[in-house]
Each structure stands twice: as structure tokens, then as C-alpha cells.
């Protein structure tokens, strides 16, 4: 028995068989054994997507790079390769991941399974869009190569399929060229939610855009934000010192949270005070050139930051609303959050482009990501938010979910039923199950 949990540290699940194969060929045996299995990468999904009471197959030892074509930027590697590793190897060579989530401690397999998005979703889509092909160990024990041209159906369900179609062994995806390891960032202050959305709509020419949003302000200032726009910097944007080694920014010191903070540390007052300071400081910064680490992964520099929420853990809540309902829906959601008195420490608003594959989270519209310490009040808030999301035709990001009831998913997302049927017909439903898929009836 191994006790497993995700990044949110809730739930904790007793896993009967936790295996760490040393070779891709060794993955078939535990999958073929009686009972179901689910793949796990670096366990950075927040909830129970990569947890199971039965078999969990970890890719922690499947971390080999296989090929890199510097002409096309096509990287082929095993599923357990961590994004931080890709950055370390390829940024100095002038290449960057096509899409990057908010942490670099995720694996390639995990990025495909959750079809992760980044600050460039409005322009470049999610990670899956850049995947040329992948090798999947399927329910009958065979390894199937799939792509847009080959086993297309399987490819389509696997990207964003939360590991429920099989176990990703290898993948090939395209990196983008960069001239420097720096990002040119422009910060715009928005007095309220409407203004923030106006800016995100208007400034869609920027490669990267995202807004930090204050969920505790009310009235005219409800949803005041700092909108961060970013572009890969050219050598001309750098200081002479940076330009001397444009692809090798200096290393930053890492902090770490050595202990679980008491769970009262984050409350609505401390969060409110933080938000006030953060907004005031942010308003004064306008144009900056910062290294990619600071821009993309600010939290990764605080190792173990999930411990600030204390022992009982925390839950993320991220939803997307279709474009035409975004303004009304987001307003309603913010009012609901503000009323609840739950302080969300890190709230992020982002404009999405269209959905890419069959079960991917993003859709054309707006997404809001929130996180809360796990309290009963937060749980009640989540239920209220579920209703708002359902009413406006939106849906939740399963990589961050640990608590959505099956019934709500069914009402919220018509694709869930289609996915369940596909899983049944392909045999994947017996072979691949996670704690989450059981909970959601997928």
C-alpha cells in the first residue's frame, strides 16, 4: 500500500500497486494484470486525476530523450520527461516549449493527458496542437502510434483524455524557436473585470496574455486586475549584459516552504491585504524584460508552495465560459466568490481560443482559475460556482478538480457521456481508471 495524493494534497488515496517501470516495455505487465491502472507523471495535477486505489504506473524512470531535429524543432521523448528538463536542454539552443503551463514540473505525458494550456492559448492553442504523434499502450496491451493521420480517433481522445485511453509512452512535438531566454512584459492595470476583459480582447496580438484578478473587491472595483502581456524578447530588447549571453539567464535562488503553515495563515483578511499591496505595486510596473523562469514559473521558485495552505490541503477551481456568456457569467461568479468570503490567493483570468481535441478543457471564451484552502465554506462555494458554470454553458478543468460530483459533470459537459461510451466500446473503461474517473463516472 502506498498513500498517494496530487499537488493539492487532497484527496489521499491508498494505492494497492504503485509501479515505477524502468523501460517502456515493462509498462505492459502491470497494465495487463487484473484490475485497472492509471498513469502518473510527476503528480502535479491538483486533485485525483493520477490517483487510484488499484494500479498506478509512474513514468518517473521513463525520462529519455529520443531525438531532436534542429531544423524543424521536433523533439521526440519518453512520457516521463519533465518540462524543466526540456527547458534546461533546449533554451540554450534557442528553442522553447510551444505551450507551457504555470509550472515546469510537469511531464510530457501529463501535459498531453491534461492537454495543458498556457498564456498563449488564444494564439497557439493547447499543448496537444503541437503534438505530431504519440505512442499509446492500449487496453489490449499493444502499443499504438497515433497522430492526425494514423489512428486519429484514439489520438483525438488521448489528448485531454486524462490518461483514460491508455498509457502514453512516447511523443513527438514541436518546439518553437527563440532568440533570447527573456520575455518582454507589459503590465496594464484594469480597474474592474470589464476593463480587464476589454484589454485581453483588444491586445490579442500579444503571444502571451493573462490577468491576475482580485476576487475580493466589490462594487465598481469588482475584479480589478493586472493584465500581463508578454512577447519573446529579441536581442535588441536586452541590456548589454543580458545580450552577451541571450539564451543563458543567470540562475535564481530557490526558496522552499519547509513546513506546513497553520491553516489559518491564509484567510480573507491576509489575502485582502496581499491583494491590495500586489495591485498597487503592479500598477507602477509597466514595461519590463524578465527571464522566462520569472515570467512563466513564478511559483516554481518557492519549492513546496502547496504547504502554505496547511496540512488539510487546498483545492483549485478552474472553469471556462463560452465567449458570448463570459461577461455576465464571470461577473456572477465574482459576486458569488466575494459574497462567500473565501479568499482566493491566486486568481487568474485568461482568454481562450477554440477547443482543440475531443475532450480538451479549453473552449473559445474566458477562463478563471482560483484556489482556496479546503474548508466547508469553500466546498459550498464550489457547488454554487458549479451552478453558475452550468447555467452559462461552461465547464471545469479536470486536471485541477478533486470534488466535482458525477451528476454535475453530466449536466455540464455533454462530451462526458460520449467519452464514457467510447471508453466502453474500446475496452479502455475496464483497463484504465483513476480515482477521478470513478468519481465522475467516466
Amino acid at each position, binding site marked *: 500500500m502506498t498513500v498517494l495524493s496530487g499537488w493539492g494534497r487532497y484527496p489521499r488515496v491508498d494505492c494497492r500497486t504503485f509501479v*515505477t517501470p524502468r523501460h517502456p516495455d515493462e509498462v505492459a505487465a502491470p497494465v495487463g494484470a487484473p484490475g485497472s491502472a492509471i498513469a502518473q507523471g510527476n503528480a502535479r495535477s491538483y486533485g485525483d486525476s493520477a490517483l487510484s486505489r488499484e494500479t498506478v504506473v509512474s513514468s518517473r524512470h521513463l*525520462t*529519455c*530523450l*529520443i*531525438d*531532436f531535429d534542429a531544423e524543424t524543432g521536433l523533439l521526440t521523448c519518453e512520457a516521463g520527461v519533465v518540462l524543466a528538463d526540456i527547458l534546461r536542454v533546449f533554451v540554450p539552443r534557442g528553442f522553447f516549449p510551444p505551450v507551457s503551463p504555470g509550472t515546469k514540473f510537469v511531464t510530457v505525458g501529463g501535459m498531453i493527458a491534461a492537454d495543458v494550456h498556457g498564456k498563449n492559448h488564444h494564439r497557439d492553442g493547447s499543448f496537444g496542437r503541437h503534438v505530431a504523434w504519440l505512442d499509446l499502450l492500449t487496453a489490449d496491451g499493444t502499443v499504438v502510434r497515433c497522430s492526425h493521420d494514423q489512428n486519429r480517433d484514439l489520438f483525438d481522445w488521448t489528448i485531454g483524455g486524462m490518461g483514460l485511453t491508455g498509457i502514453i509512452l512516447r511523443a513527438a512535438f514541436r518546439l518553437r524557436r527563440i532568440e533570447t531566454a527573456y520575455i518582454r512584459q507589459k503590465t496594464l492595470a484594469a480597474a474592474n473585470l470589464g476593463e480587464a476583459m476589454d484589454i485581453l480582447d483588444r491586445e490579442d496580438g500579444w503571444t502571451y496574455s493573462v490577468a491576475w484578478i482580485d476576487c475580493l473587491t466589490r462594487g465598481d472595483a469588482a475584479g480589478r486586475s493586472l493584465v500581463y502581456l508578454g512577447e519573446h524578447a529579441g536581442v535588441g530588447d536586452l541590456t548589454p549584459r543580458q545580450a552577451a549571453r541571450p539564451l543563458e539567464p543567470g540562475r535564481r535562488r530557490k526558496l522552499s516552504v519547509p513546513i506546513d503553515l497553520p491553516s489559518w495563515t491564509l484567510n480573507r483578511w491576509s489575502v485582502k491585504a496581499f491583494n491590495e499591496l500586489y495591485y498597487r505595486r503592479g500598477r507602477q510596473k509597466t514595461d519590463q524584460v524578465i527571464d522566462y523562469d520569472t515570467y512563466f514559473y513564478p511559483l516554481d521558485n518557492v519549492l513546496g508552495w502547496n504547504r502554505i495552505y496547511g496540512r488539510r490541503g487546498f483545492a483549485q477551481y478552474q472553469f471556462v465560459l463560452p465567449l458570448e456568456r463570459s461577461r455576465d457569467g464571470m461577473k456572477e461568479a465574482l459576486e458569488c466568490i466575494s459574497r462567500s468570503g473565501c479568499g482566493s490567493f491566486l486568481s487568474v483570468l485568461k482568454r481562450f481560443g477554440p477547443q482543440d481535441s475531443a475532450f480538451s478543457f479549453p473552449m473559445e471564451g474566458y477562463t478563471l482559475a482560483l484556489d482556496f484552502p479546503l474548508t466547508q465554506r469553500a466546498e459550498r462555494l464550489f457547488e454554487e460556482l458549479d451552478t453558475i458554470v452550468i447555467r452559462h454553458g461552461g465547464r471545469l478543468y479536470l486536471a485541477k478538480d478533486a470534488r466535482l460530483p458525477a451528476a454535475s459533470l453530466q449536466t455540464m459537459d455533454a462530451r462526458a457521456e460520449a467519452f464514457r461510451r467510447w471508453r466502453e466500446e474500446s475496452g479502455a473503461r475496464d483497463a484504465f481508471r483513476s480515482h477521478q474517473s470513478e468519481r465522475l463516472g467516466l
Partner: protein
Amino acid sequence: MTRTQETGPVLILGATSDIALAIAHQYGAQGRALVLAARAPDQLDRQCQDLRVRHGVEVSTRAFDVLDIEGHASFAQSLDPMPTTIVCAVGYMGDEETSRNDAAAADLVMRSNFSGPAILAEALCQRWVRDGLTGTLIGISSVAGDRGRAKNSYYGSAKAGFTAFLSGLRQRLNGTGIHVMTVNPGFVATRMTEGMDLPKPLTLQPGAVARDVIKADRSRSNVVYDWRWRIVMTAVRLLPEGIFKKLKF
């Protein structure tokens, strides 16, 4: 390219071990060509390719068996080019319980960790001397060799033998331009220790051991410990035998 200690090829013996591979990555990152030697080198195909893609260095493999002591001299002679750095990461923990009751199993542990690696190290150093070359030999021994314990008297005594041999070799070759370094890792999270219940603060990742090795190589250290283990082992060595024998660790 001129052949110097900093640029020549690195030979890694026992290359399938996690520590060995981590060391290979460190040298690869410095642009050194790598020769990975193992009993079954085809098991290293993925790792070789990984080293090539990551570091853009030449990687080749060699088959060798540390127990084939008759073959060590010809193995050393066959290396072309002769590496400037050689890492011996060969090791086999065995099972203490089995070793007690099975002489062949006990013998295997002792030959794999002591006589095999020692005779091989001798052959390699002699090749350097014969060809008038300089080089660095890095032997991965273990803290287990510092004092015999009930839990690993076979493995520990064999490592003690290897440690003592490296010490003798270092003294003998002093002044010849051939440097012998002994690395004594403590607990390391590897395939060898997978499933063992190790104290977390004293358990290093293979990458951390490898970084220590590279640093020590650069400064031409003699005997290398992780700083935590240096403290622990100093204490362990200082314990009077009368107390030590009563302890249960």
C-alpha cells in the same frame, strides 16, 4: 583537439547503475565523449541516445564483465582511445541473509565489489603508466566499507577492501600524474535501494552524488563524502568497539 584531463573521453564501468548514469550526464554536459561499459550494453540503448540528444556528445558502449578477472588486462589494452577519466561504478549489494547461508552467493558479493573492481583498476592504471599517459580513476566505494555492520558484513567488507585498495593505489601512483579518487556515497535512491526503508534526510538522489563527484574531480580530491555522511561516518568510526558491537543499526 589536444588530449587533456578536462577534454578526453570518460569511461564508465558498470554503467547501468543509476549513479553511473548520473555521472555520465554530468560529464556529458561538459562535452566529454562517453564510453559506457556494462555486462549487457544493449540495455543501455535508450540511455545512450538520451545522452547524445541532451549533450550532443559521442557515446559508445563496451561489453565487459567485472568477474572475468583474466580478461581485465586485455580489456584495458583494447581501449582505443585510452580514456582520461575512468569511473568504476561496479557494485552488487546481494542479500546479507542469503550470503550467510550460501557460500557462492557470498563469494559473488565479495568478488563483484572487491577483487573484480580492484584487479580491473590495476589493469587500467597500468595501461596509463605503460603508455606514459595521465588520468583520473574514480572508484565508487561506499560508507558501508568504513565499518562492518551486522546488516551488511559481506557487502561492507568487500567495499572496505576496495576502499583500502584504492588508498594503496593512490599512494603508489602519487606523483605520476595518475590520480585515484575514492567516492563513498551513503544512502542513494537507486534501483539497488528501491523498496528499502531509508531515512529521508540522509538519502541522496543519484544526481546529487554525481554533482559531488564532478566537483571533487575538478578539485582533485582524494576521498569524497557528502557532508552529512562525513559527519555521520566520523561519529561511527569513533565509536569504541565495545559500544559499537551492542548497537542495532
